């Protein structure tokens, strides 16, 4: 279906310091190919969320620049930039005073789309995230955590962005919901040919969903490998520390199956 893949993304010497001297992102340079699904993994405070938010300028870096398909993100007003980027984060941030349908259509409303067009798109998006059409008229509070996160994804996709940023998108969900939503998102990534950057602290999730896994520690990229390389333990010491646990768990689960 999709004619071409999502845009390439590049970081060039990006640095962010917080007041008090903490360096959250330390001179990161990085290229992400268009159409790839990249997981950014690290412990709390490693700088992975900060790095992600420099892309849609929820955080402005102190030094360096970020380009999307070669264009500097600082070249246009932040609201305009953000309307072309899908953004999903842990707390979802659904607007409690709007119905699910109004939440999903908010980006279209900002873009000046007519109500009829918005309604049609909401139905389409609800189907895309595998929610029944009648939830459109409900308030977010009436949904389960997993359903709310699906609505968050639908809202992020409403304006047909080619780049998706996800900050711990499954953080607050139970394992079963996590797994099904993860698969759904990977499916959407492939069908819509997006470029996706997902921040997570869960290495197993990263290895299962992403094409490429970046490990961050103390504001730097300390490992950059494919899931297969991580599985083989070829990605260096820092990556190995995170990858060893899920790999060992996978082996034990496999033994249980054979027993």
């Amino acid at each position, binding site marked *: 279906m999709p004619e071409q893949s999502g845009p390439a993304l590049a970081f060039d010497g990006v640095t962010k310091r917080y007041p008090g001297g903490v360096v959250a992102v330390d001179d990161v340079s990085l290229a992400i190919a268009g159409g790839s699904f990249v997981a950014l993994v690290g412990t709390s405070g490693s700088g992975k969320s900060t790095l992600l938010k420099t892309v*849609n300028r*929820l955080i402005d870096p102190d030094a360096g620049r970020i380009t999307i398909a070669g264009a500097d993100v600082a070249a246009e*007003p*932040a*609201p*305009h*930039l*953000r*309307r072309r980027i899908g*953004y999903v*984060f842990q*707390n*979802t*941030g*659904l*607007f*409690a*005073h709007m119905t699910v349908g109004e939440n999903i259509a*908010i*980006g279209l409303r*900002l873009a000046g789309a007519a109500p009829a067009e918005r309604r049609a798109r909401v139905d389409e998006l609800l189907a895309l995230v595998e929610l029944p059409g009648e939830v459109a008229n409900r308030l977010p509070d009436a949904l389960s955590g997993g359903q709310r996160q699906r609505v968050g994804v639908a*809202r992020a996709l409403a304006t047909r962005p080619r780049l998706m940023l996800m900050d711990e998108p499954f953080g607050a969900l139970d394992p079963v919901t996590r797994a099904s939503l993860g698969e759904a998102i990977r499916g959407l990534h492939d069908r819509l040919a997006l470029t996706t950057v997902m921040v997570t602290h869960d290495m197993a999730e990263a290895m299962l969903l992403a094409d490429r896994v970046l490990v961050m520690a103390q504001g730097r990229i300390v490992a950059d490998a494919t899931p297969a390389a991580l599985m083989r333990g070829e990605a260096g010491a820092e990556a190995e520390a995170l990858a060893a646990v899920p790999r060992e768990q996978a082996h034990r689960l496999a033994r249980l199956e054979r027993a």
Partner: protein
Amino acid sequence: MTEAFARVPELLAAHVLLAFAALALGLAIALPLAVVSARRPAVARVTLGIASLVQTIPALALLALFYPLLLSLSALLGGAIPALGFLPALLALTLYALLPILRNGVTGLVGLDPAVIEAADGVGMTPWQKLRLVEAPLVAPVLMAGIRTAAVWTIGAATLSTTVGAASLGDLIFAGLQTQNWNLVLAGCIASAALAMAVDMLLASAEHGLRARRPWRAWASLALLGAALLVSVAPKLSPGADVVTVGAKGFSEQYILARLIGNRLETAGYRVRYREGLGSAVAFDALANGDIDVYVDYSGTLWTNQMQRTDVPPRAAIVAGVRDWARETRGVRTLGTLGFENAYAFAMREADAEKLEVRTLSDLSRVAPNLAFGTDVEFLERPEWRAVRDAYGLRFASQTPYHPTFMYRALASGRADVIPAFSSDGRIAADRLRVLADPKGAIPGYDALLLLAPARADDARFSAALAPLIGRIPVEAMREANYRVDRDAGKQSPAAAARWLAARIGLSEAAPAR
């Protein structure tokens, strides 16, 4: 009671107009301030600090403070700003309305879920879109609670605006308090409480509509409030007959004379409004500024307070001096004297005066250190008191101000031994008081003067309607009329006493009643 409620519609309309205008202005100021304060904690500390400080000032004092403030501002700008009436009341009430709106607005904005704000930014809202689409609707219920508080406070405090010459339901309360007409006080209280409750209920309904996502309900409530405002404004917009405002200070004689003047003007075809309960210092300026068209003041009051004179020439010289000064400096016309004097008359209980052998103020200075002095609220601040005190060396054991009516009660009950009574007061004879002579002539004459605002000074029809009152009211008639209002048993309203007085001096067809 019916008579007490007769003036409610007119005053209710003025009350609604004043309170709603203050609330609207308060909203216009507080809402942007709340948004800025929520974004910058340093600004919030300043704005909330100032708003809280304003709230600690008693409403009555806040209203009173705006009078000198506007007066000096007006002087700076060449007299363009009215220091009395609607404007000072509006400004004071607006300040009063700020705090609850500002506080709830800031609290609501600061307390919003950060995730929601991040989401609003994330979907690409501009700061204005974020405010309109996300922050405002989410804060609306909390904000509405603040607006309700502000509305109830403003409607309550608006009753005090009577003291700066703005018409409100407080006119009834103050007039009732002065004349001890509790029906009037009740009418004013019931009407303003009912107004406050009705507005609170409508705003509550609007708030409920917002919470329940039923915008029509919120709009219906606001539409009803808007309709109330329209009804209040309508009489002001209709080009009716020439409307005249008759002023009165806050005691019975003034209320009676205002009605007497008003009745004559109505007979002459004018539409008449009353602005009652004006402070002594405020009344003359109100006339000079055209806030009121006509009222009665006393030569000695203007001589000492407005002209700042300390010498005490004969009565006729004071009247002439005041007349020339008023005309030349403020354009106010003195139509003439009504024929009686309402001077300060130091009075004691007859039995006490007899026992202590006090006949004059000189005698009084001998025994004063053992006596309690009860006065009206303003006497101790007036230059006349300083003149008398210094001329006779008066020094009392205690000095207590009362409302004029309660001053007589204090004397009768023994809580005060000496009072500065009014020579036209019917209670001097009725309460068997001895009036002390003033051998040194320290107290000036207080001839009642009929004063016209500059705009009415050359209005022949206007002065013709009032001319028959000149020289027509002997002090005995005024005393009797005052006593009809002030006495405890068979108390009459000032309007009834005015009708009686008109008949007594031969200016009406009706026979003297009762």
